[in-house]
């Protein structure tokens, strides 16, 4: 039982790191970025390739798994994404789907269809005994790292000046701009960090989901959307809560009721919609 809970929390934490970037772009720029999963995929591939081809130790690949998608995000944001900030939701959807559909075959072409595995270093593999229950070390590691990230984000948002500017821009971009806040720069940085975190999440999640393969973005698209939906406009803590809930329900569901376990997240989606009839993305929706 404890193992399941821990697995669920670990998975939920991963989802949080993976999806928080999506919540931010949604809440901040009202922008629907369906290609978000592609950045996660890139991060996962970076780690897998660095480890498998260059023999780089797992921990050292993680900064790269963050930076590469982050840089990619900045480049794409400056060149392509920013043209579409005022575009209709349909345009944003079509465009980001296009990006995703381009990214996946490129990955397949360059790296093949087979999932790239991330082999955990020995010290992360294995279990520890905790009150007679076996607990995976990697799970603990994941919870620790993601928890630290969540805490860091929260502190950053609340305590730093940039964080305050970000929150102001989320609240009302025009007013923020009128106050002299460089909203453009904030968007770019937020997008980069969000993409970077997605990449980091992808790297961390690689072991849990059985490797990174080209279909990763579309497989997890609904999950990311649901996380962004549940947590969405409630800030970091809201997103964290949503992810944890989803993670635990998903893992528990698959364990206890394996025949319908995969459908748990869809059930969550439906229930959330029923419970919150005004819609989920109270900020990011175009009508």
């Amino acid at each position: 039982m404890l193992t399941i809970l821990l697995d669920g929390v670990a998975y939920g934490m991963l989802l949080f790191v993976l999806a928080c970037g999506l919540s931010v772009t949604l809440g901040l720029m009202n922008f629907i970025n369906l290609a978000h999963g592609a950045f996660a995929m890139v991060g996962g591939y970076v780690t897998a390739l660095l480890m498998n081809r260059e023999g780089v130790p797992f921990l050292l690949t993680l900064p790269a798994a963050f930076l590469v998608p982050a840089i990619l995000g900045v480049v794409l944001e400056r060149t392509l994404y920013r043209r579409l900030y005022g575009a209709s939701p349909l345009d944003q959807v079509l465009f980001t789907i296009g990006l995703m559909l381009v990214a996946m075959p490129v990955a397949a072409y360059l790296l093949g269809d087979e999932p790239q595995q991330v082999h955990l270093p020995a010290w992360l593999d294995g279990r520890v005994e905790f009150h007679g229950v076996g607990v995976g070390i990697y799970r603990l590691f994941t919870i620790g790292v993601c928890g630290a990230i969540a805490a860091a984000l929260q502190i950053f948002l609340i305590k730093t000046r940039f964080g305050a500017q970000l929150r102001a821009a989320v609240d009302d971009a025009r007013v923020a701009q009128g106050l002299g806040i460089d909203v453009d720069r904030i968007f770019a940085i937020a997008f980069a960090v969000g993409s970077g975190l997605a990449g980091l999440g992808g790297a961390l999640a690689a072991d849990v989901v059985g490797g990174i393969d080209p279909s990763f973005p579309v497989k997890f698209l609904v999950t990311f959307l649901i996380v962004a939906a549940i947590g969405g406009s409630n800030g970091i803590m809201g997103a964290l809560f949503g992810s944890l809930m989803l993670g635990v329900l998903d893992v528990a569901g698959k364990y206890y009721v394996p025949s319908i376990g995969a459908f748990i997240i869809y059930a969550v989606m439906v229930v959330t919609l029923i419970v919150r009839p005004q819609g989920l993305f109270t900020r990011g929706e175009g009508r």
Partner: protein
Amino acid sequence: MNAPGAAATMDRLAAHLRRRARWRWPETLFWLAILTLIFALPSRAGIINEVLIAGLFALSLDLILGLAGIVSLGHAAFLGLGAYSAAILASKGLAEPMLGLAFGAAVAALAGLMTAPLLLRGGDLTRLMVTLGVSLMLGELANRLDWLTGGADGLNFSIGKLLGRFPIDFTGQRNAALYSFAVLFVLFVIARRLARSPFGLALAAIRENRLRADALGIGAGRRIVAIYTVAAAYAGAAGALLAETTQIASLDLFDFHRSADVMLMLIIGSAGYLYGGLIGAAAFIVLRDVISAATPEYWEFWIGLALIILVLAGRERVAAAPRRLIALIAPRAAERGAA
């Protein structure tokens, strides 16, 4: 108000309203041309059939996207449902195609009816998520229930003769094309009528200005559920046709890229005109065959690229040429000009 002035106004008004509904000769020509093609190119019956079915699928998306302004990322859900329903029915011995067609459409319509209320909540993003979620969920379900659906292998079956007389399998390719044509035509006429009815007008109003539509007392919720159900039925019919004329239903019908494909077809051809989906489908399939002869596996890449370019170049400008073509055939239900 002087009497002659009033009479002139009435005449002009009546003419204006009538013009929207009249069947114009280029439209008749359009349909006759397709029919002629089926007879003139018997060796191409297979691809013509594919275009007709894709056109029906695109038409079904047009009903929700073009008419009602609802964005869907999972329209393939209904395609798959229709296909598998017809396939399962046939493999259980009820092999009359028309029966499978009706059953497929009905099952899809039911699914549409049940999921539509979820679309009413929130805005575009919620709709995207829900539609995507439903299609992936159904795909997963079809995968699981492999005793019913054949799982990853798909469901092979043999189809009976249409109306008991006309084979539509590989021995009757032209019959298959004619079958699809007939279904498409009938459903198109109904859709056309629907678009020009007060109901269709109300949908246009909901799409164009939801605030004002509410202020006129239009019950947007019910109308949206209704059109979504109809669109689901149409997509289900397309799925049934696809399964019946190829004698196989496979899991990829629920795939995300099917939903993306049909969206692209509709966008290429212009949404909202009803004919746009048909033209877009034809263009899409022809282009696909040309390009995949060169690069077979990475078709997804080109679709993605097309979408990116399409959006960046501006959908309006890219669709200008097909739109002019369509305007020749039939004016949009809601748009006036010099016509």
